């Protein structure tokens, strides 16, 4: 239900053409601290930058989506098997840490900021984009470890949630103005192609629609 406020707010973002704004809808995070929020905004902007192909993660309100997700049972690990013992093994046997998504963000962001500070004397959000990209690549490749948490674990969590935020139904707080779907060419909740299934080669003419009936 939190998402509904966000959906209304997005009409202001729609006023500017997609791809030409990277400003998120004003939003006060509930889970992330100001320092964490600054990291999240900076990282999202690098992971899905605004460019000629369409809006970036900020215009799509991906940080808001992630903050709202942190209030769901998923973020507390309610859907994962979280009984010990926690024994580490080969990567292909899957995730084996005792941390739920909320913990992964807390530890991961602190770890990223600590690495940024050690290497460059500033938190991640204060670095030039090229240095931010270096750190993100490092996290992606596993070149850092945050306590007992390999950086890949944090990076994969972040990237997965960023993609979800940009491309899920706006009811969850992201994909503002259906900008993610429009960019991909995904019609959203249309979900009726009885007349289209065998129009081979024709371009589907209808824009995206969301669960709440918002169109783009």
């Amino acid at each position, binding site marked *: 239900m939190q998402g509904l406020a966000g959906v209304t707010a997005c009409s202001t973002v729609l006023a500017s053409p997609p791809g030409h704004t990277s400003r998120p809808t004003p939003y006060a995070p509930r889970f992330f601290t100001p320092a964490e929020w600054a990291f999240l905004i900076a990282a999202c902007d690098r992971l899905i930058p605004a460019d000629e192909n369409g809006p970036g993660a900020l215009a799509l309100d991906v940080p808001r989506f992630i903050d709202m997700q942190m209030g769901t049972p998923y973020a507390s690990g*309610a859907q994962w098997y979280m009984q010990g013992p926690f024994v580490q093994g080969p990567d292909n*046997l899957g*995730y084996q840490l005792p941390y739920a998504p909320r913990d992964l963000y807390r530890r991961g962001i602190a770890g990223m900021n600590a690495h940024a500070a050690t290497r460059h004397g500033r938190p991640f959000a204060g670095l030039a984009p090229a240095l931010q990209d270096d750190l993100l690549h490092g996290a992606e490749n596993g070149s850092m470890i945050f306590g007992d948490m390999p950086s890949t674990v944090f990076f994969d969590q972040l990237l997965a949630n960023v993609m979800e935020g940009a*491309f899920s139904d706006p009811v*969850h707080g992201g994909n503002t103005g259906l900008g993610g779907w429009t960019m991909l060419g995904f*019609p959203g909740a249309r979900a009726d192609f009885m007349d289209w299934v065998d129009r081979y080669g024709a371009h589907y003419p209808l824009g995206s629609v969301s669960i709440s009936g918002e169109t783009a």
Partner: protein
Amino acid sequence: MSDDARRLHPVDVVIVGGGWAGSIMAKEMTEAGRSVVMLERGPYRSTAADGAYPASIDELEANFRYKLFQDLSKNTVTIRNNSQQTALPYRRMAAFLPGEGVGGAGLHWSGVHFRMPPDDLRLRTRVIEKYGAKFIPEGMNLQDYGVSYEELEPFFDKAEKVFGTSGEAYMVKGQVVGKGNVFSPSRSDHFPLPALKDVYTAHLFRKAAEEVGFHPYSLPAANASRQYINPYGAQMGPCNFCGYCSGYACYMYSKASPNVNILPVLRRHPLFELRAGCHVLKVELDADGRRATGVTYTDPDGRVVTQPAEMVILTAFQFHNVRLMLLSGIGRPYDPVHNEGVVGRNFVYQNVTTSNVWLDRSIDTNQYIGAGGGGVAFDDFNSENFDHGPLGFVGGSPVWVNQAGVKAIAAARSGGPPGTPRWGSAWKAGVIDTYRHSLRIDAHGANMAYRDVYLDLDPTWKDAYGQPLLRMTFDWKDNDIRMNRYVVDRIGDVAKAMGARRVNLTKREFGKPFDTRQYQTTHLGGGAVMGNDPGTSALNRYLQSWDVHNVFVIGANAFPQGTGYNPTGMVAALAYWAAHHIRTTYLSHPGPLAG
């Protein structure tokens, strides 16, 4: 555990699990005049509530928060690649997605609905006839099912009529009648509904496969191509290719599910009772362990309850059936060191890889249009349809375009062509091009059974009720990797004929272990297999426990080895086959049906 348990009034039959197998068995047993209690650990579910448009078609909730799937926080499995490793818990949903709740995975499966190929039912015999016993690799436990296609045919037919399956037959009563799969055996009747229309990608694939000289056919789909009323009087609407199929309850009532096709009728039957939120802990046996007396379960309030019954039917899904047998002491557990014992033996999976084909940028592939069971396949390299002699492997693989509807999050996460970064502007360009102009082709191969691939109970990890988790010891073997690589090369030929701009052939790699983090499929099989030899099968050919005659175990656990096809058509036919023999023989003469 059962000492202080509440005891309920006895019933004739208790059924553990409310999915396809459970619903079919419950329907059959009530038709036979028996009182039936069906216990389902998950919540009550219906298409009206869980499939209500538009709230139900939320990709995040359905496919990434697993709204309708098993609650792993309560119960999962542990997995390792070989018996030297420590198996570790499958903590997050990834490689396979077991169902939970009334309807089981049948509420939100895709709908590809096959019959088992005749040769697959007697694969050991067939391979030896064709290539000699030496052809079977060391360590492969190749077996026959102990039942023939001719025996099962009436039950395949019945299942298709209950599911409202759409398809085109090739041969009916020995006469060629249509453009169906030329490798498929003769049928007693047509499919109840005509084949679904081809989506664009399937249409292009069909043309190209024909050009290369293969024999494409429409996938048999339990997604209704027209309005339909099944033999039970249940109604289905026509599928509109909504694209929200796999992982969703069908808002059009077009995808066959226990919830649409069986339960509305069954629930009105006075002899039937459904209890949701009831997790069965074990089957209770009498003092000498030869007869089941009922089951013990935890009810929605957490109380431990015993339900006495004359007969217990396990329909909890493949690996849950195996685990319940192990927890209850039904049948001898498998010992991989000596290759003895049967419960846990011949655990198999599905050997699937998905390749990608990029077409010209003027062509929109509209990947969001699709039905879960729809598409076009060719079987030229499935089963025993081709000469394995010079190739030196056992098993095969159908190849298909089965565009069930690719949605935005899934597209974003699968990204662009190999070598494209996973984020940033290059990712964005790659993913847009891939989503708009590419298609996916699967090699949906069989996985053979091996002596050192098996199921047992984990020594360390427990479920929320304090019972040991099931342990999977599983890896890909060279025979199956070679099969996959051979068939995927044939995809390359078809892609070329499609005029591909770019092709990414995905093949299994030698030495690369099974990876639990990547979604493959929920087509798990074996572990409590059927057969004619109690030394190599846990169940006789009627899916009755060899050891405890009033326990029947229905599910893909009965498959002695994997097959190239999806399992549910066979699971449903086996349910009707077992039910037929229970009704015609067992109920009047309870005792072993084979021996």
